[in-house]
């Protein structure tokens, strides 16, 4: 008899060859769990090479998902269930499986050839040699079972094997007592033109589901109840997708054309793919010949009165540096997206890192301040890129939006807003109000120190802008020493003034003052929040604040930092925010750094918080 256990949360990791349909299996389970009402967080792990040899460790594709009846903020440190399609999938991910965890293995993927490709010593099969005894192992010949259920379908063996992931999905649906309906709907839509494939995939999934009932060695079923979530409408969203939608929303809200110019680069390209589907929103995407053309064409579009946006990852941003300087001299709106990855140089393209903060803040020649914001979670990409657009247009400045590979590809449920609820963005194109004989002064400023956006086509406001230092107000070329100093200071003050137009910093969780404040930024949000919560449950005095505005900082940040005995700044870099905080507030903050291309685990953060709390205990 199968028994059913109740669980608060579960982490499942699907792993196999990149051709095994792992990402699809993961996404389908995610959607079903979300529809059921679980809170969820996911993270895909693609192989670095596009066509890594089949069956090898380099070719392993993974999809981790964490769902529960409680609040879920990260894809999870370690998994409860590991579903592997072959030996390489097991080898690459076994260290991430909790002790006592469940392994569902496709035994056919552990033949001599696959074991060899996964670099197991000759004659060693982990499924048979007892090395997995501390786990609950279900070794199932999924290939054979799928083929036999599809016998007579008229499909070739190769085609039948493509449905193995559906057999697995069916089995996992059975384990967690989930409905197959949404996946069936998906398959019908996906293979509209090939009903035989719909039938085969549904059949394989159902076979997997029923296999659970009939399996001889009984498997435990689990119940993960729906989470208590705020009322409202939700959808599942990935970071890059949220970024794309945020841009469309901002442009639509301002009534401007979005011009998105970019050059393909991992992990930012998915934003381009998404945006290119939305031409009916007036979105123009431009795949430029290089990174420099991408940003300079966006500047051209902004000069013309459009919302110019460019995106890249670290190496591409390095190439854009000079043009960012131009945009800030021109004082035109421009959004620069950096989906950070491991660096320097080509670095770790498919891995995550937060090491481009200083590049965003300082990586240009001359005194060249720009605004910088960062997203904390996949859905926060929507809000913060929207903010980046707002600041760019309302303050006539380039704005950096920082995301990273972790949140760009990660997904979570998002309580999406209605269009009408989005903050208004004010676009004021200059109008000709000149008196006869009066000259237009393109660099005249308002009380925010912002100049007007006078776009070509406006009669009487013809003017020239350029990268050479310009005279205050007139914008004419000027090499005057006094004027240059004035302009440098004005450009700095203009950015500083943005602080009056952004929200104050809030404490995300924990006491408003006390012993330890953990100050984070970017994608570390979920793991810091979870760790801080657990530390508080253990009785420690830990608060968490997370920065979304990095230049300028919220006005009250300095005051907040003074309310705690110690400040801990965890970052996935060698210490960047900490330099800025120390410089700006003379605070002896402590860094906690991880530079492994992978996110912090909740456990390591909690350990650090606990150690520090012990030290500062009176």
């Amino acid at each position, binding site marked *: 008899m199968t028994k059913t256990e109740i669980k608060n949360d579960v982490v499942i990791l699907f792993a196999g060859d990149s051709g095994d349909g792992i990402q699809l299996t993961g996404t389908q389970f995610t959607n079903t769990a979300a529809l059921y009402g679980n809170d969820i967080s996911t993270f895909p792990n693609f192989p670095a090479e596009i066509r890594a040899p089949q069956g090898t460790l380099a070719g392993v594709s993974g999809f981790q998902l964490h769902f529960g009846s409680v609040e879920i903020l990260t894809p999870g440190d370690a998994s409860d269930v590991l579903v592997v399609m072959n030996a390489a999938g097991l080898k690459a991910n076994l260290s991430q499986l909790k002790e006592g965890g469940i392994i569902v293995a496709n035994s056919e993927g552990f033949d001599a050839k696959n074991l060899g490709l996964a670099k197991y010593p000759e004659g060693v099969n982990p499924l048979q040699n007892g090395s997995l005894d501390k786990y609950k192992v279900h070794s199932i010949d999924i290939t054979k079972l799928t083929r036999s259920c599809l016998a007579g379908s008229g499909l070739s063996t190769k085609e039948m094997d493509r449905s193995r992931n559906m057999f697995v999905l069916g089995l996992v649906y059975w384990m967690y007592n989930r409905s197959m309906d949404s996946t069936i709907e998906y398959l019908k839509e996906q293979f509209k033109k090939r009903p035989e494939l719909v039938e085969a995939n549904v059949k394989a999934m159902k076979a997997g589901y029923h296999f659970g009932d009939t399996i001889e060695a009984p498997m435990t079923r689990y119940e993960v109840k729906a989470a208590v979530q705020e009322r409202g409408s939700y959808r599942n969203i990935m970071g890059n997708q949220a970024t794309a939608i945020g841009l469309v929303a901002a442009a639509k809200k301002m009534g401007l054309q979005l011009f998105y110019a970019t050059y393909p680069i991992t992990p930012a390209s998915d934003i381009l793919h998404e945006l290119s589907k939305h031409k009916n929103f007036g979105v123009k995407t431009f795949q430029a010949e290089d990174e420099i053309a991408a940003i300079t064409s966006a500047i051209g*579009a902004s000069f013309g009165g459009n919302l110019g946006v460019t995106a890249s990852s670290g190496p591409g941003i390095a190439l854009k540096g000079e043009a960012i300087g131009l945009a800030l001299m021109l004082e035109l709106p421009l959004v620069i997206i950096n989906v950070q990855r491991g660096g320097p140089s080509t670095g770790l393209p498919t891995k995550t890192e937060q090491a481009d903060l200083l590049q965003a803040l300082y990586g240009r020649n001359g005194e060249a301040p720009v605004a910088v914001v960062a997203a904390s979670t996949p859905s926060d990409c929507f809000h913060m890129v929207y903010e980046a657009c707002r600041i760019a247009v309302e303050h006539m400045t380039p704005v950096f939006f920082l995301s990273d590979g972790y949140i760009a590809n990660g997904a979570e449920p998002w309580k999406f807003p209605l269009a009408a609820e989005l903050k208004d963005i004010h676009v004021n194109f200059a109008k000709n109000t000149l008196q006869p004989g009066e000259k237009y002064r393109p660099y005249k400023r308002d009380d925010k120190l912002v100049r007007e956006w006078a776009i070509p086509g406006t009669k009487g406001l013809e003017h020239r802008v350029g990268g050479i230092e310009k005279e205050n107000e007139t914008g004419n070329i000027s090499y005057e020493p006094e004027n240059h100093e004035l302009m440098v200071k004005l450009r700095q003050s203009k950015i500083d003034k943005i602080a009056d137009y952004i929200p104050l910093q809030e404490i995300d969780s924990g006491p408003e003052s006390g012993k330890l404040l953990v100050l984070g930024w970017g994608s570390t949000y979920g793991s810091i929040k979870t760790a801080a919560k657990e530390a508080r449950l253990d009785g420690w005095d830990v608060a968490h604040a997370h920065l979304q505005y990095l230049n300028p900082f919220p006005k009250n940040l300095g005051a907040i930092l003074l309310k705690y005995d110690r400040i801990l700044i965890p970052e996935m870099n060698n210490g960047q925010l900490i330099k800025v905080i120390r410089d700006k507030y003379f605070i002896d903050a402590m860094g906690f750094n991880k530079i492994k291309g992978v996110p912090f685990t909740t456990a390591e953060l909690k350990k650090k918080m606990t150690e520090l709390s012990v030290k500062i205990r009176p």
Partner: protein
Amino acid sequence: MEATKLTPKDFVTDQDVRWCPGCGDYSILKQVQTVMPELGLERENIVFISGIGCSSRFPYYMDTYGMHSIHGRATAVASGLKATRPELSVWIVTGDGDSMSIGGNHLIHLLRRNFDVNILLFNNEIYGLTKGQYSPTSPVGKVAKSTPMGSIDYPFNPLALCLGASSTFLARTMDRDPVHLREILKRGNTHKGTSLLEIYQNCNVFNDGAFEVFTEKSTKKAEALFVQQDKPLIFGANGEKGIKLDGLKPVVVDLNADGVSPDELWIHDEKDKTKATILINFFDDPAKEGHFPRPFGVLYEEMRFCYEDALALQMAEAIALKGEGDLDKLLKGNNAWTIN
């Protein structure tokens, strides 16, 4: 509404022109300001965009909208502007270093995309603003600040490069021939697509006389071949020489001695790519024995769709297919659920 009658003066700004006295740039500026009122454009719809270099100061002197951008990128800035504001008349002002060294990549990509913009390529075969280094169009052997022993860089033939990049309009003219320059400017403006105007420009400070064989009265007729649509290729001090095509091989003939009648000569046809390819490759060193004259005029023109038009079509098609974008629908996606 009657279009405002503009005069060349309306295009002059209050900025002091800062080129060296005697620089060929003055003449080009003057001719551009002279033809502008004849183009039927409103001043506010004209944008001049430049990169960096002596010629790139140009926008400051034109009372239109303008941007003096960064080195080599004027072409890319213009692409973004034209993609989003196709109704504007966009003019790119660039030099040989700006467009073919640091900005070479953007130039070739602009040409293949065929945005409807005009490129004024001031070729002076030298870096002027940085004070006299050889450029990508300087001839081999050029002694300059950075090449005391003579340049060993083989130069570009700009028009051949641009033809290779699928340019749809190629013309050559010179600062010292205002009438021809104005005519070519007007032709460039009329062309729908990217017009590339190579303008030989004398840098009297660092490369004086680089083009004098083509521009000075004494040698101009013999060395410069001015082509005109449907007219035979004739040159020479007294118009005594012609060019004939022997298959695909051009031959210089003496109209007096060889008894060739003008109808047997190569008749210029701007639309003929094969002929344009041969013509554009008349790029010999004028000092070389048996060299061909250097052609001036509109050497090639082709009609091809412009990027911005194709983009506008796709936008319209997307709307026809899916309807005007509905933000609420986009926010909601396909897999939304509600918690009550």
